[in-house]
């Protein structure tokens, strides 16, 4: 009985919809897609029912695919559409952990602490995104954060390499090697993120958007280069 009552109540609300018809003259095209990270076939079944391994693997695959995209940057709109922030978080935490507590004479003179690196990366990404949107960019806020975060990957790799090089000694040779590695990876990061971001800007403002990105990776590269292990 209650179901019938509900049906009775809902009937007047939806009655008018039966009058709506789409004219055959107007072609209705396109996707009505809410851009979420997961592909659309998931809507057919709830992800609560699948084994946890599948859920994790799917997200890991998405993250891994983006890492590959950063390694070989070519324009790809799928990367921008399916944004996620797992990759940037992972990279940021790794980098911050490796960078912290650089040198030890006094707490003040040391290298950046974990929180400082974290804040620089996220705050810097937000500011760059705001900047590009204020200049009239068409990229969305989180897409931009996603791209900037993923393009930190070459610098994280450089950090790992630097730490390994420092294990062997911290003389002039190691400094030159680290300088080359950091410079190469910082250029790679800037180039990769520009490949994704520059398209969304009007052409007479591209340099205005690229410059802050260059500054951002330069600062991160500087922090990596000047890292010296505790005595």
């Amino acid at each position: 009985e209650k179901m019938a009552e509900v049906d009775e109540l809902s009937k007047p609300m939806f009655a008018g919809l039966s009058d709506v018809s789409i004219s055959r003259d107007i072609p209705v095209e396109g996707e009505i897609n809410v851009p979420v990270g997961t592909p659309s076939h998931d809507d057919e079944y709830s992800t609560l029912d699948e084994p946890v391994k599948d859920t994790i693997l799917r997200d890991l695959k998405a993250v891994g695919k983006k890492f590959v995209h950063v390694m070989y940057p070519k324009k790809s709109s799928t990367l921008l559409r399916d944004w996620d922030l797992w990759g940037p978080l992972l990279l940021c935490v790794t980098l911050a952990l490796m960078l912290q507590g650089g040198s030890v004479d006094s707490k003040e003179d040391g290298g950046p602490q974990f929180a400082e690196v974290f804040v620089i990366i996220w705050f810097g990404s937000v500011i760059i995104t705001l900047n590009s949107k204020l200049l009239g960019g068409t990229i969305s806020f989180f897409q931009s954060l996603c791209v900037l975060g993923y393009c930190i990957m070459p610098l994280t790799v450089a950090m790992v390499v630097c730490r390994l090089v420092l294990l062997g000694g911290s003389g002039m040779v190691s400094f030159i090697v680290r300088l080359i590695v950091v410079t190469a990876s910082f250029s790679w990061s800037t180039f990769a993120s520009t490949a994704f971001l520059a398209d969304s800007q009007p052409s007479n403002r591209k340099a205005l958007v690229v410059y802050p990105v260059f500054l951002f990776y330069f600062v991160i590269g500087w922090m990596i280069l000047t890292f010296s292990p505790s005595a």
Partner: protein
Amino acid sequence: TMASPDDLKFQEFEEATDLLLADPGASTLSMSGSSSTALAGATGDIKLDMSDDEGQEESSELLRGEKQTSGFWTFEYYQSFFNVDTMQVLDRVKGSVMPLPGRNFIKHTLQPSPDLYGPFWICVTLVISLAISGNLSTFPNSLGSAHYHYRPQFHRVTIAAVVIFLYAWLVPLGVWGFLTWRQREERQQSGYSFLETVCVYGYSLFIYIPTSVLWILPFEWLRWLLILVAMVISGSVLVLTFWPVVRDDTKVTAFATVATIVVLHALLSIGCKMYFFQTATPTLNHTAAILTNKTH
């Protein structure tokens, strides 16, 4: 005696064609709308006349008032401050390092659209270059010392950021406030908006970026020479900008204002040099650096 409605009509049409000749792209909707209401009476027509004559001035007034068509809570309001192209920014930077007498930075390069992109990113770059160069400058000093242990001195970045950004916002606020107050007292027409003041101060800081990089070289005489050059260039941009506004005032006020602007600018550059680029003799570097860092 009132002019006949036909005369009025003909007059408006003439002015409309004049305006159209001046600006072919202008929409004519507003003219036809207002002319129909102006036909109602002479007073309405006179009002329309005056607004036509001052049409150009009014639009420039509006543009100087930053065209606040959206409220400050909308995104578009802030977008209007970033309405610049790459070439415009480069021109403004060039104008800030090459001050020519008689060329007012604001009137020449900034109007009609001052921007916030330049000041903001110049300040950020300046903070970064000060911190990095200050860091690097300790390096040549210590080449002889065996005890040298590299210190990133990361906390200095925070101090640099606070100082530079406070200067770039508070000083223009003070200058603009003072000038606007004097303007009201003396009933002068020309004055700069707050955005333009911030803009000229921001761009004037640009010369300090290459200066701070050159400060790495450990020659004291060179550093003071660089400060002098930078202050002359940057100070003259400011003076050339503010002098035309201030000179109609009493002599004392005019000179005092300009002197204050220059002195504050000098304090900033000397303060930055002393804080970030400490010189110490190489043998005493280690202990001196620790002592000075502890006092900060």
